[in-house]
C-alpha cells in the first residue's frame, strides 16, 4: 500500500486540486481496491487497475461536487484554481500557478493526459492501459495539450 500511496495521492490531487478532496478520494480508492482485490483478474497490471480506480473515483468526485454546487465541472475547476493561491496546501510560484490555470482551459481528456505525462512522468504505454486508449491517440492528445498550454503561457 505504501508503494502506491504517494503516487496515487499525486495523481488524484492533480485531478481534484484540493488536498482535502484528494484525501477523501484516496481513501475511497483504497477502500475499493481492498474490497474488489479478489475480483482483480490480472488481465492488466495491478498498477494500472489501481490507477484506473483512482482516476474514475476522482472524476466521479468532481462531477458529484459540481452537481451539488449546481455548476459544471469546468466551472468548479475554474473556481478551485481561482482560490488556489489562498490554499494552505499550495505553495506554487507564479509560473506554477499560471500552468495550473492553463491546464484547466483544456478538455478533460487532454488535461488527464498532460498531467499524467508531464507531472507524473508515466509512460505512454502505462497511460494507455490506465485510460484504455491507444498510445497514438495519447501522443496526439499530449501534443495538442502542450501546444495550447504553451500558447496560454506565452500570451499570459
Amino acid at each position: 500500500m505504501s508503494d502506491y500511496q504517494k503516487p496515487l495521492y499525486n495523481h488524484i490531487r492533480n485531478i481534484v486540486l484540493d488536498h482535502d478532496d484528494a484525501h477523501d478520494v484516496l481513501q475511497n480508492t483504497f477502500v475499493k481496491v481492498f474490497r474488489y482485490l479478489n475480483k482483480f483478474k490480472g488481465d492488466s497490471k495491478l498498477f494500472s487497475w489501481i490507477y484506473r480506480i483512482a482516476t474514475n473515483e476522482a472524476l466521479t468526485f468532481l462531477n458529484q461536487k459540481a452537481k451539488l454546487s449546481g455548476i459544471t465541472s469546468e466551472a468548479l475547476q475554474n473556481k478551485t484554481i481561482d482560490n488556489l493561491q489562498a490554499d494552505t496546501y499550495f505553495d506554487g510560484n507564479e509560473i506554477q500557478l499560471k500552468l495550473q490555470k492553463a491546464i484547466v482551459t483544456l478538455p478533460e481528456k487532454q488535461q488527464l493526459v498532460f498531467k499524467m505525462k508531464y507531472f507524473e512522468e508515466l509512460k505512454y504505454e502505462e497511460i494507455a492501459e490506465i485510460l484504455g486508449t491507444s498510445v497514438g491517440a495519447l501522443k496526439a492528445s499530449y501534443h495538442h495539450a502542450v501546444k495550447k498550454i504553451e500558447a496560454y503561457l506565452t500570451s499570459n
Partner: protein
Amino acid sequence: MKAFKLENEPKIETGFKTPENYFENFSVSLLEKLPQNEPKTISLFARNRKTFIAAAAVLVIALTVPIVNKYVTKSKELDEATLETYLSYQSNLIQYDLIHELDTNDIKNLDKNIALGDDTIEDLLSSNANIEHLILE
C-alpha cells in the same frame, strides 16, 4: 514576444504540498475506514442443518406411524386366519358360547357345507372315547 516552450524550460512542478507526516498518518486513518472482517454470523439452523433435517424426518415418521397404523387397523372385517387363531387360543371359550352365537341360518349353512353321512357320524361317535359324555350333552 518570446514563445514559451515547455521543453526548453526547467520542469515546472505542481506546487501542491501535503500536511506534515500526511503519508505516515494516512495508513492509520485508512485502516480505521476499511471495513473490518467481521466474523460471519451463522444461524444455529444453518450450522446444524443436516442434524435438524434428520431430526425432523424422524419426528415426522414417529408421528406418522401411529396415525397410519390406526387407519390401517381400523377395518372391522376380520380375516379367517385371525379368527381361527383367536378361537384356538381361547381355552375358556366353551361350545355353548359358540352355539349361542349361531342362528338357524348359520346351522343350515353348516349342514350344507359339512355334508356328513350317517356312516361317517357313526364311525366318529364309535371311535370317540367320550361318547357317553357327548350323548348326555
